[in-house]
């Protein structure tokens, strides 16, 4: 399936380009502008060149936050992607039960982030929350506001609870669009469940899974509201992820320069990782298309 060259396709893309560029380019350039300047309020700005960037690269706090952030996103992807696929495979194919599953599954996605944090804040407390109560009744000492490990576990479970359905919905829609003849052919070949998954379902889901992985990577890498409401970044700095650090900096110093430089470096890290992943996926796609 070789695509045809057609420059007029630009006309189909143009509305998107105009709409997105309007909200994207001017704010981005403004932030770039801030990042090279020092401000003293009252709109007085001084050019400081790369000073903020150099300062940030030397900051140990930033490297710690980056490390935590990478670990967090890695764990999130390792749990949510396989679990989402498993849920999508387990879902009823049609009928009322499929409808019920779809509606119930999407409920956590629809809760505003600050409420998500609040739910788990109460839910995890040993005195008034179900999760904390059950764990303490089982004799497991659990306190997300004192113990760094417990805080991590809570933030991860909260994120899995909140976002796995996104992966599952995408994977499910991908599965549903596989034409029946593929399954019939597999049945004739007496293919095992595993090989149906490995050679039919997984390759056909590659497109939606790429979106799911990229989305979950980007959003988990920028997670802010939920852990902030839950623990405020604590105990200590245990759950101070990059964006929590960024907001602390932006609010704490009343200076847009360093915060803007931080934002841009943050953006570049996400961009770089996403780009590498995207390029690898495209290359695999092309290799398989050749075969």
């Amino acid at each position: 399936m070789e695509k045809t060259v057609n420059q007029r396709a630009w006309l189909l893309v143009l509305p998107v380009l105009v709409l997105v560029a309007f909200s994207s380019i001017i704010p981005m350039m403004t932030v770039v502008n801030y990042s090279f300047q020092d401000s003293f309020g009252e709109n007085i700005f001084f050019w400081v060149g790369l000073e903020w960037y150099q300062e940030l690269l030397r900051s140990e706090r930033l490297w710690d936050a980056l490390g935590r952030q990478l670990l967090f996103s890695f764990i999130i992807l390792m749990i949510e992607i396989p679990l989402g696929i498993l849920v999508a495979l387990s879902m009823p194919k049609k009928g009322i039960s499929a409808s019920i599953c779809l509606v119930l599954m999407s409920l956590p996605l629809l809760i505003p982030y600050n409420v998500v944090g609040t739910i788990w804040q109460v839910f995890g407390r040993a005195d008034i929350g179900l999760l904390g109560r059950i764990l303490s009744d089982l004799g497991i000492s659990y306190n997300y506001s004192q113990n760094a490990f417990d805080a991590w576990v809570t933030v991860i479970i909260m994120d899995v609870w909140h976002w796995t359905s996104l992966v599952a919905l995408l994977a499910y829609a991908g599965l549903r669009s596989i034409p029946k003849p593929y399954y019939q052919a597999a049945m004739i070949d007496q293919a095992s469940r595993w090989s149906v998954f490995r050679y039919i379902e997984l390759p056909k889901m590659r497109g939606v899974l790429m979106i799911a992985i990229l989305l979950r990577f980007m959003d988990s890498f920028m997670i802010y509201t939920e852990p902030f409401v839950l623990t405020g970044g604590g105990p200590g700095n245990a759950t101070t992820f990059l964006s929590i650090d960024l907001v602390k900096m932006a609010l704490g110093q009343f200076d847009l320069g360093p915060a803007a430089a931080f934002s841009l470096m943050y953006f570049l890290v996400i961009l770089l990782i996403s780009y590498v992943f995207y390029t690898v996926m495209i290359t695999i796609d092309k290799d398989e298309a050749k075969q």
Partner: protein
Amino acid sequence: MSENRLPNKKRGSTSMPRARIGALVMTLYLVFLLVPIYWLIIMSFKSNSEILSAFTLFPDNFTLKNYSTILTDPSWYMGYVNSFIYVSLNTVISLLVALPAAYAFSRYRFFGDNHLFFWLLTNRMAPPAVFALPFFQLYSSVSLFDTHIAVALAHCLFNVPLAVWILEGFMRGVPREIDETAFIDGYGFTRFFTKIFIPMIAPGIGVTAFFCFMFSWVELLLSRTLTSVDAKPITAIMTRTVSASGLDWGVLAAAGVLTIIPGAIVIYFVRNHIAKGFALGRV
């Protein structure tokens, strides 16, 4: 499907029918999702002091006061109306511009196509905290501040790229022969696109509409920055439950329950599009 199970049995990996395992996984997953939501719901029927003082699986003093606080005060419930207006606007705009663009990306090669495709997604990658001020300046300068369309347009920044990406994935799954056959049969592009192509990717459109709705509905930072009174969204109004006397958990929980409902209705309407695979070779 019984043929498929035979090899499994030989290996002795499972003796349970696969459908039963699926139901088990699904049940466990739904319980995991719903227990915290149950907690949110019972919190919304409790008074603030009961929430904070005791562990109860069911409200001791069942109260509707939290809901009446919200539903009798226009400064509360108008938040839902405002959110609903800009979210609907955003979903419609996103789908309208993303459909042709996704078609172009899935069918044609053109100058800069791969770079442009990836650039779209980069708009989701900037941590929003520092971008609030430039957004405020931009939308004030075109005198759209505190209007629904301003928030709808600002949310296009992250929803349009998402819509293009998801739709492109679905469109790529439609064989090109369908386009070619339709064009040979004398369909013009517009008629082909609306009459044949769009029905074929209905599941994709359903999923995309839901995601646009959802991401716009829960977004807090941009919508709070771009509004003050007339278009203030519910997510921003909710933050007022934090006051000097601490957090009003009951009202926040009630507001949270009410924010779930519109989205649940949307997913109920698009569920068939998600669940229904498209029939191949309809042309």
